[in-house]
């Protein structure tokens, strides 16, 4: 092999090596691009699932609050009725006391 042929072979090999590296970089860029879209997709799915869970949590709480509220209201109303019934039963006694104050107290 002559000197020129040897140089040609080496230059070809260098070209091929450069192509191998360029291909590797292209592949790496593709991997990175795929990664961006993968991350975006994965984030979207995770956030969507969380939002779904969040919506369900609030909706469930609203429904539970209505039920809890009804129980609470019933309980408070029952106590309130007791208080008011007891007060109604004591109205006569209260009138007697007030009349006695009005009739007897000094101005």
């Amino acid at each position, binding site marked *: *092999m002559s000197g020129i042929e040897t140089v040609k*072979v*080496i230059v*070809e*090999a*260098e070209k*091929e*090596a*450069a192509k*191998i*590296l360029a*291909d*590797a*970089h292209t*592949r*790496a860029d593709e*991997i*990175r691009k795929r*990664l961006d879209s993968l*991350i975006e997709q*994965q*984030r979207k799915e*995770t*956030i969507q*699932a*969380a*939002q779904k*869970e*969040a919506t369900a*949590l*609030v909706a*469930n*709480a*609203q429904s539970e*609050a*209505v039920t*809890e*509220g009804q129980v*609470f209201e019933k309980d*408070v*109303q029952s106590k*309130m009725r007791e*208080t*008011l019934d*007891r*007060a*109604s039963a*004591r*109205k006569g006694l*209260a*009138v007697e*006391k*007030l*009349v006695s*104050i*009005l*009739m007897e*107290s*000094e*101005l």
Partner: protein
Amino acid sequence: MSETSRFTEDILAAANQKAHAIIDETEIETRQALDQAKIQSAREANDIVNSARAEAEAVRRRKISEIRQRLKLEEQFEKSRIVTEVLDQSKERVIETLKDERRYLAYLAALVTSGIREIGLEAVVVHLNVHDLSRVNTIELEREISKLLGKSAKIEFSSEPVKALGGAIVSSKDGKTRIINTLDQKFEALEPRLLIEAGKTLFGE
């Protein structure tokens, strides 16, 4: 194998090795980035769920608080209604009781006597309402007042009626000093005490 062939093979082997390294490095980077992104997304998702949990708790609390507030107002309204009824009935009862002339005379004498003591004058003018001016025996009233005062009272009854449910206004002769001992004033003055007493009797344990 010639030197040249070995040389070119080395060049290509080095290039291949470097290419593998580039890919491997990129894959490692991607895996790390993906893991990092997963952690970040999980954090965001966790924040969303935690915020929803807090909102859910707030929804429950708001509901209970709304009901508690509404029922409290209802209860206060009902209590106030009962107290007002009791107060009105008591006033009506007093007015009814005082229709008994003997009883009213004694009551009126006590009111006028209290007024005379308070004004601290020897001679006073007593003002009554139009109904009392016609029905009350002023001579008898004066006698009762003297009895209560323990001395003779110099009382002049005004012919000008006052607007009142009952009771009297005791004034100086010139009208500059007045002690208002009407039923209306008594009701008004005693109202805070009556409300407290009614509250204790009606709603106390």
